[in-house]
Structures are given as structure tokens and as C-alpha cells.
């Protein structure tokens, strides 16, 4: 049991578990963001709750940060190990004959998602941490009203940021199109539900990023 994370299968399993965890987080993030389209007040209420409730801030947030860092670091470690496993490259390799572009380029789609996440953290997470834990303002208020919806709208004014976010979501879709099914394969899923899960994974990989794109565009055109 102790050496499980040193084995190829153990690392795959850990990678898959972190991926499944992050997919649940993305779904939750999407649902909250979608509220901003239908009800600014509801979005403000939920954002304030998520931003101040102790279990979310001190329990779930550190787990999430660990999950994100683990997934990226393990992804890069596995990529380096896999590159070492073929010391001489083929002169001619027809990868498209037997596998999808998404499956062969997870490191690139993941890398772009990382770039997107850095901007996303600079846009939202770092200012949020600064306001709450450096300046000590836990009220969530600005000029007498909740600040969350206003901050969200403000961020989606510049076209360059909206475009970058949309491209980021396209890469998220490409990553999930392979990653969802791959995660279940890695944890050993092999039963009568596997085919249905793969279909659900494809729908998830397209609907969620498309939804995020819709939200970004909605706020860009409705500020």
C-alpha cells in the first residue's frame, strides 16, 4: 500500500481522483456563475456565503488548492516521465490514425488552462484574498451594496479578457473531452455503465465550457 503512489497505476489513479474532484468543483462553479445571469441578488448572496462560510474558506478551499496544484504538478511529472520512455522519436508518426487530438495533447490543453487560471486568479482570487484576509474586510459590501456582481461585470468589459476566457474554455472543453472518460478508465471503471458514462462525459465536456462562454459573453454585452 505504501508504494502505491510510486507506481505507474497508483499515479494514474491519483491523477484521475484529482480530475474527478476538479470536475465536481467546475460544475459547482458553473452553477453559481449561472446565477449571475438570472439573478444578481441570488449571485451576491451565494457568493457572500461561499466567501465567508468557514467550512468553505478553511476546509474546502485548501483542499481545492491542493487538488489544483496536485493535478498540474502530477501532470507535468507524468509528461516528463513519459517523454523519457521514448528516447528516440519516430521520423514519421501517424498519431491521427489511432487516437484523437485531445488525447494526444492533454499537456498542451492543460498548459493553456493553467495560463487561463493564472489570469483568473489575478482577476478574482488574489483581490478577494487581499480584501478579506489582508485588509480584513469580510463584509462583502461596497458603497452600501454587495460588491460581487458588480466586480464580475466589471471584469468582463474588456474584449481581450473575454476573448482569452473564451479560448480558455475551449481548451477546457478539449481537455475534458478526453479527460472525463480517461479518469473513469484509470480508476478501473469497466461495467455496464461505462458506455453511458462516456456519453455523459462528452456532454459534460461540451455543455459546461459552452455555458461558461455564454456567461462571459452575456456580461460583456450586458454591462
Amino acid at each position, binding site marked *: 500500500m505504501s508504494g502505491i503512489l510510486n*507506481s505507474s497505476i497508483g499515479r494514474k489513479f491519483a491523477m484521475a481522483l484529482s480530475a474527478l474532484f476538479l470536475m465536481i468543483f467546475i460544475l459547482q462553479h458553473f452553477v453559481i456563475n449561472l446565477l449571475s445571469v438570472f439573478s444578481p441578488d441570488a449571485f451576491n448572496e451565494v457568493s457572500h456565503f461561499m466567501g465567508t462560510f468557514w467550512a468553505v474558506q478553511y476546509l474546502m478551499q485548501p483542499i481545492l488548492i491542493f487538488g489544483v496544484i496536485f493535478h498540474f504538478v502530477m501532470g507535468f511529472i507524468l509528461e516528463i516521465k513519459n517523454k523519457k520512455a521514448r528516447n528516440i*522519436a519516430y*521520423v514519421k508518426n501517424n498519431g491521427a490514425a489511432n487516437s484523437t487530438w485531445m488525447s494526444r495533447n492533454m499537456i498542451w490543453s492543460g498548459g493553456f488552462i493553467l495560463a487561463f487560471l493564472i489570469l483568473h486568479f489575478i482577476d478574482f482570487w488574489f483581490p478577494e484574498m487581499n480584501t478579506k484576509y489582508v485588509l480584513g474586510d469580510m463584509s462583502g459590501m461596497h458603497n452600501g451594496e454587495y460588491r460581487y456582481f458588480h466586480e464580475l461585470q466589471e471584469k468582463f468589459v474588456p474584449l481581450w479578457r473575454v476573448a482569452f476566457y473564451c479560448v480558455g474554455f475551449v481548451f477546457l472543453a478539449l481537455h475534458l473531452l478526453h479527460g472525463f472518460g480517461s479518469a473513469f*478508465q484509470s480508476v478501473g*471503471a469497466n461495467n455496464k455503465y461505462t458506455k453511458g458514462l462516456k456519453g455523459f462525459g462528452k456532454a459534460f465536456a461540451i455543455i459546461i465550457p459552452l455555458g461558461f462562454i455564454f456567461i462571459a459573453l452575456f456580461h460583456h454585452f450586458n454591462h
Partner: protein
Amino acid sequence: MNLTLKIWRQKNASDKGKMVDYKVNDISPDMSFLEMLDVLNEQLVYKGESPVAFDHDCREGICGMCSLYINGEAHGPDRGVTTCQLHMRMFKDGDTITIEPFRATAFPVIKDLVVDRTAFDRIQHAGGFVSVNTSGNTIDANAIPVNKHDADDAFSAATCIGCGACVATCKNSSAMLFVGAKVSQYALLPQGKVEATDRVLNMVKQMDEEGFGNCTNTGACEVECPKGISLENIARMNTEYLKASLKG
């Protein structure tokens, strides 16, 4: 058919190696790929040059000895066949065909297109077997009831000929389809269950020590496998390994 061949030539394991161009003429579409290489080698010997070394044995698609990465695919562009069963009718007159050895750090080139695949043998030695008491009281295998579905799956897994196309095809040079098949063929049968824990732990350990990469589930191995070994075997190996890790 007249063809241009771009072939990897490497004198020995320490030689750097390079691609060399050759012309072959009057190739019949009914020839196998290896017969076409035989024609080339006859030409080379006639000219006093060193023939191209390549692996082959049964030439009937069942021994797993032939290899070759042809036009960017293990065992060439046809599906469900080994290189010896690949026929020249799959190519067109005037084609340029690129022929390389199976590439993986764990499969070092010995000469030209011949690679050392004994890493697979060492994985098999680590646990790819069933210990049978040969005291004279051995139970007749046919007397042990086996679920038909499991028997079929075990038989499908056992059709793996260990050619290494999965490793050659995988962008990570992963051997998990091979090991998954070997683990599955025993894990599914009552005779294999007794040693299941040690088997999967030892085989995976040996696989990792040999320097094969990690599976990222691209599915390329399943597509290029000449015996159609399914990815389900990797999922089964993953489950077996995780169960064994918790037990052992």
C-alpha cells in the same frame, strides 16, 4: 509496383543510426510486406551491401516476432494484422514507405529494425503464469466450472502475442495493454485467482522498472493491436492492482 523505401539503418546498439533511401521495383501487390523486404535484401546482397535486419519467425501472424513501424503506424496501415500479414496491395505504385523499428527506451535497437523486447519476457517472469502442482493429483482444467463470459474474456486477453505494437504505438511507450492482457487472462479464471495479488503487484513493478511510460488512455494501442486486445484489460488491471495494493 515500384516503391521508394526510407529505412532506419543502424549497425549495432551503440551506432547512432540514420534513415537510408532504397528503390525496389516490380513488387507484386500479392507479396507480404516481409517478402518485399526479402526482395530488397536480395538486391542488397547481390550488390555486396549489408541486408536490412528485421525480426520475423512464423510469418503467419501468430508468433509475435515481426514488428516494424510502417508509415507512422505499428504493423503498418492495415488493421488486425501483424507486419507479416500486411500485403503490398495496401500501398500504391510509386509510394514512399517509411520503415522504422519499434521505438521505446525499454526496447533498444539491436540492429537496423531489430529491437530487444526481452523486457516483456521479464514482466512475464515476474508473474505471468499460474503455479500448477504436478504431483499427479492435478485437477483437470475442464472439471473446473468457469462462467462463459469470463472464459471468453480470458481467452480474448490470452490472444495477445506480445509483439510490442502497443508500446510502439503509445505516445508514452506504455506497456499497459500488454500487462493488462496478461493480468486479465489469469485474473478472470479460478486457476489464476490464488496468485492474483502477487501477480499484478510484481508484474506492474517489473513494468515500471523496465522504463515503460504511463498510460494516458489515448486508446491508440487498442486500435493498432494486431489481436484487438481491448482497453477493458487495462481497466481490469487497474482494479486488480488497486485491490492488491490494499490487500498486500
